[in-house]
């Protein structure tokens, strides 16, 4: 099967700092990959580079999405091609309400009732008339991010630390929303590819992923079963990964 995403020898800088150093990565359609790594290792940089944020300057290498070279494309072009992102800490946009955002980005095939149902399910009905992320709690932000992706319906999603800032009670709700987004809760639903960054691994109690990778100092150092990797990290931290390189 053709790769949904393929990254070749990717070198990226932010200002004078090299944040990715020759990353090679690929995933097939509908696969869900998990990315582990210590703080500052390059997890978010990898995701932001895939999405095309200009601050992340590609020095070398290529990114192919659904067979197309997207290395030179800007953020909104990549979104149009079917890439979506859930931010770890999305910015507050006071003037644009969640409702307005949904109206603008919703897939035209989605009917209003489906959207309303999703809003209710994510417990965000009371947030529709508020500015994006304006005074939202950690859990509300994550649910708002996932709601936007659900109505946008991209082919592949990048989810940055879905459990950060979310209390234990709400992690299940976020996990359930991710499963819905990825088409995991119904057999007939379209399966979306995903890369999920997790720091604590809590989200893996709710979402099954196919492969796991560890990123250290701007490079992917090993891959395998995500649960095994998490178990190793819990036992030995990332120290062994550094030694293992």
């Amino acid at each position, binding site marked *: 099967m053709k790769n949904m995403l393929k990254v070749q020898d990717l070198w990226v800088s932010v200002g004078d700092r090299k944040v990715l150093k020759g990353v090679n990565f690929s995933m097939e359609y509908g696969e869900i990959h998990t990315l582990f790594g210590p703080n500052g290792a390059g997890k978010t940089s990898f995701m932001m580079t895939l*999405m095309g*944020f*200009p601050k992340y300057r590609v020095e070398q290498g290529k990114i192919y999405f659904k067979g197309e070279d997207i290395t030179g494309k*800007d*953020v*909104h072009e990549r*979104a*149009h091609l079917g890439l*979506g*992102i859930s*931010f770890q800490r*999305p*910015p*507050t*946009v*006071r*003037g*644009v*309400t969640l409702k*307005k*955002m949904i109206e*603008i*980005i919703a897939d035209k095939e989605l009917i209003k009732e489906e959207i309303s149902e999703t809003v209710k399910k994510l417990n965000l009905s009371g947030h529709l008339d508020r*500015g*994006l992320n304006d005074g939202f709690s950690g859990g509300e932000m994550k649910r708002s991010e996932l709601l*936007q992706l659900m109505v*946008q319906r991209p082919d592949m999603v990048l989810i940055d630390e879905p459990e950060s800032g979310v209390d234990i009670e709400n992690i299940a709700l976020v996990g359930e929303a991710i499963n819905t987004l990825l088409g995991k809760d119904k057999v007939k639903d379209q399966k979306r590819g995903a890369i999920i960054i997790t720091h604590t691994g809590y989200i893996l109690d709710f979402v099954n992923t196919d492969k796991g990778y560890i990123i250290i100092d701007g490079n992917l150092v090993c891959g395998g079963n995500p649960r095994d990797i998490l178990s190793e990290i819990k036992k030995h931290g990332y120290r062994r990964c550094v030694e293992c390189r």
Partner: protein
Amino acid sequence: MPISTSYLSDIKVKAEKAKEKKAVFGPDIDLSRYTQHIERGRIESLENLSQQAKEAAIMTGINIKEELRSGSYFQIDQSVVYESLNKAYEGKLEIMSTTDALNRYDWLEDYYWKAVPVDQDKYTAQAALNMTHGYFIRVFPHQKPQYPVQSCLLVAENYVSQNVHNIIIVEEGAELQVITGCTLSKSGAEGIHLGISEFYVKKGGKLFFTMIHNWADNFHVRPRTWAVIEDDGSFVSNYVLLKPVKSIQAFPVAYLKGDRASAKFNTVVYGLKDSYIDLGSRIILEGKDTRGESIARTIAADESVIYARGDLVAKTRDYCLAHLDCRGIVFSNKAKIYAIPQLVSDGALKAELSHEASIGPIAEEQVEYLMSRGISKDDAVSAITTGFLNLDIPFIPEFLDKNIKEVIAATAKEAL
């Protein structure tokens, strides 16, 4: 019976003394340049206005067919050309020129120049000495017209000084909405508009006032406004300026005289070209349990200069609450915004006054966030900008609301 001549004489004497008095804020204008006087006849219907005048009026929210309006007042330069009252409101509401009202009601002595000080500056003096009408609107006790009254103060010729004196009285328990459009029908006209506005909201009354200003590059504007609000009364003022102006300076005051009275100012300003804009709002909280809120959204583009002032003055010995929220975006390296919030507690031990003021660019981070959802950069900027300025003013025609958003979006696209 007309207002007493002795009262009018006193006003003139005070005005004469202030003829050369410069205003505290804003560039000083040589009023001797504006001496053109044009008398115009009445028209039967707003449909009979010239095409230019109609178009200008429509852009300030005026409904030419008078649909969904309780009544209309239309003035061109120094002449009242049209007044009307929806038949449904006869005996409930009255609309006429202030000149006619002064000739009819001697009790207007209690309102005319009782809120705005006639000797405040040379502009109030000029308006008193050479008044050229203005509207008088009074809603009778406990009447609540469903639709707004519309008024348009239009300048059509060069070198005109339009000196209007507007009085609105909302009697006890009554409610009124007013949309006022002040505009030019000639985009290049040079002149000045002096607008004295005295609003009185009696016990339990409500006044919802919206003003849209559409001026042009060579035009000066000096409004002087006071609203006096009695017990349980409320006053909401929406002000929108989205076109260039040579200079405008205004600092409207809401005087919360009665207990539990409230006032809210919403100000939306888009500074274009070399406009000099000095606008503010002052809320004086004198009654107990009074509430005030002042929200200003300003964008400075091109070479515009904007002063966004806001004063909250607490004078009550009892509880009162007021907040000031002033935010600005600078779009050009030649534009300036001065945000000047001021909180004053005059022995008001229980007053809670607060403010937040900020000036900054449109955050690139916000634009990119919207782009990551598949929105183009232009559309992202305009969504953020229109959202920033959005006031959701009721009774503004949909096309006008859309037009306001398009004007904002068109300029916003060039900003990043």
